[in-house]
């Protein structure tokens, strides 16, 4: 936690508070030894969210990919027209 306080340039209570929120959300895990608390990322909940969003993401991604291709074609046509 000391390392985080230095890295993030916020106070130790501030770091504690953020870590508590992340821990309650299941996004970090804590391991205690005699002197220190070690925090590590727990990526599983993020992977769950990503899996849940995946169907819609793919749908929109594919749709916007087609729009992107169409915009490219239209711009090429415009350029060709200018050259004529």
């Amino acid at each position, binding site marked *: 936690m000391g390392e985080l306080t230095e890295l993030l340039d916020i106070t130790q209570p501030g770091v504690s508070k953020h870590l508590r929120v992340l821990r309650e959300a299941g996004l970090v895990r804590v391991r205690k030894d005699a002197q220190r608390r070690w925090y590590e990322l727990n990526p599983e909940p993020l992977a769950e969210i990503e899996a849940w969003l995946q169907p819609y993401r*793919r749908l929109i*991604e594919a749709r916007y990919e087609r729009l992107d*291709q169409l915009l490219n074609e239209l711009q090429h046509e415009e350029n060709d027209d200018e050259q004529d």
Partner: protein
Amino acid sequence: MSKINLVAEPGSYEIRTSREFNAPRALVFKALTDPALVAKWWGLKSTKTEIVQMEAKPGGLWRYIERDDNGEYAFRGVYHSVSPEQIVYTFEFEGMPGHVCMSTTTLEENNGKTTLTESSVFQSVEDRDGMLQSGMEEGATESWDSLEELLQSMQ
């Protein structure tokens, strides 16, 4: 890495997506409001999209039908405001009448590129979540097709 930014907060009625396009805003606006152009990108790759009606002006109606071997799916709505900066319209799948969402499409141009942001607000969290899961089958198929295209272009 995904090209789109997708936000759906827990317990919220909203889905927000955004993506940057390498084209000026006027052209993106045209692709969004010209029926002949919308027919080319809006529908799924596995379906054929018919633009039955589309009047991109305040109070104008739109209705699209998507057809594939299994049947047809119709969508409709009303435009509330239309300008090159912002389009506000409603969206409803005719298979679930009464479940209407309101979408705001915002177009921002920067150095010749345009960021399209779409915010869709549903009537309930359930409706919002239903929409998020509705792309399941189609979305998966689409992505495999896209992957195939990508792989072919790399050969």
